[in-house]
């Protein structure tokens, strides 16, 4: 109808890449957790699923509180954190410099990357029997498994991050008088730091996964062991409690990385 006022079209609520603000984003995140919890409640309260398979949320919560009240559980948490940190840091200290080297120099990349690509596809878990032969079943076995799981990925990812640095930045440092190694140290290393931290954040998640695998075999301590032990007695409450505690530890370390990112790199 010409001349008639059309009612303004409503914009769709979801726009690609459009920011929605901190309030709405928090509300949605909380809602998402609530939905998971509600589904769980519904399934368990109505006993649609056998409680042995799916325990009730408040039982699990009770179990978490009970377990956290015992010194034994805290020592499990402590030893698990120790193993993850040791394996992960070892992988970082070796993997990141090697990765930056391989990313900076084509020769380094040619020597290092093909074997790493090859090894990376071997499942770290398959190394467990070998690791037991090499270092036995002590602490080193767990640390080594986490190391193997993280190290090769880290080298390749660090190399890739390094290669993405703008060559113009390196060139400009040369025209300002930097030598090759000075350029690595004053351009490449600072330039890759933020992305390296993001990569470490990602890999830490993997480290926790490998930890649990490592602790399922021939151990008598750690969160993975606690979960295994609970399974033997069909104590699903406790299994759930263990999994959720690992999840919370992961969430905590993830937040820690996010805070570090903001603190260390105000220039981004």
């Amino acid at each position, binding site marked *: 109808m010409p001349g008639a006022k059309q009612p303004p079209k409503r914009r769709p609520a979801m726009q690609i890449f459009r920011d929605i603000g901190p309030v709405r984003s928090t509300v949605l995140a909380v809602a998402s957790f609530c939905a998971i919890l509600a589904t769980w409640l519904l399934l368990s309260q109505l006993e649609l699923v056998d409680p042995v398979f799916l325990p009730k949320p408040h039982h699990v919560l009770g179990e978490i509180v009970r377990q956290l009240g015992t010194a034994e559980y805290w020592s499990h948490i402590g030893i698990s954190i120790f193993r993850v940190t040791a394996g992960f840091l070892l992988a970082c200290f070796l993997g990141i410099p090697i990765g930056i080297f391989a990313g900076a120099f084509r020769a380094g990349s040619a020597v290092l990357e093909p074997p790493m690509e090859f090894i990376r596809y071997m499942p770290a878990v398959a190394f467990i029997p070998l690791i037991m032969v090499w270092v036995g079943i002590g602490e080193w076995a767990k640390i080594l498994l986490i190391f193997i799981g993280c190290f090769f990925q880290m080298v390749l990812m660090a190399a890739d991050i390094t290669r993405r640095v*703008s060559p*113009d*930045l390196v*060139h*400009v*440092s*040369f*025209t*300002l*008088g*930097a030598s090759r190694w*000075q350029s690595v140290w*004053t*351009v490449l290393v*600072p*330039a890759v*730091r933020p992305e390296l931290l993001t990569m470490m954040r990602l890999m830490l998640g993997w480290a926790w996964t490998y930890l649990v695998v490592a602790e399922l075999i021939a151990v008598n301590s750690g969160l993975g062991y606690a979960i295994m032990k609970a399974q033997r007695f069909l104590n699903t409450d406790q299994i759930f409690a263990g999994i959720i505690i690992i999840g919370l530890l992961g969430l905590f370390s993830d937040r820690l990385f996010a805070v570090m990112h903001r603190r260390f*790199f*105000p*220039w*981004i």
Partner: protein
Amino acid sequence: MTLAARARTSAAEPLISISGLGKVYRTKKTEFVALKNIDLNIASHEFLTLIGPSGCGKSTLLRIIAGLEEATEGTVLVDGEPVAGPGADRGMVFQSYTLFPWLTVRQNIEYGLKLKGVPVLERRRVSDFYLRMIRLERFANAYPKQLSGGMKQRVAIARALANRPKVLLMDEPFGALDAQTKQAMQELLLEVWEKEKTTIVFITHDIEEAVFLSQRICVMGAGPGRIISEHPVPLPEKRGEGTRMLPAFTALKRELAALLKS
């Protein structure tokens, strides 16, 4: 004596001397001649602009002078010394923004001095001097992300100059800026050039920019990249707002436009 005349009289002792320069990119099957038979002398304190269509090898030529690429033929002498790689005596400003984003404006300017091991106080004195020259004193402690495009390029120029290079190589430094910012940058650059008595080799494909800035313009052609013609710029040494209205300015602009079209 005008600067152009001074440049000509000192041509006997050029700061940069390029002779028989060629650059060929070879792959297994093809050969691409990027530059062929380039002969060029650049005097001390000259402002020389290389202008030409894309693909004429002007950037390659600049990068060879900088030492970032190697020529396949011929030589480049800077102050009598053959170029054997990049060095602090040839500062460069790129078209893309190349400030180190993790350093503040001041730290960016001091980067080269720090590499040389210049003590903190001396570094600070130099960066203060150049911050004033580019009129960004207030932004000394800002990070590059807080600066506009024009401000970033001003810092890039200051960073190169803080090293006191013999020559400043500029590869379309104002190419990404809007028209107004570009004019302001051109005026600032001339001011800096006057004060610093530095030598500048400038690349652009903007004819007006070339005429406004330079004392001498070399027109380059593609396929293979070569210098077609040289034009001294017959304008007064002191350039300003009125310069663009002068008949000599428009005449040279027209002449160059015709050359580049053919």
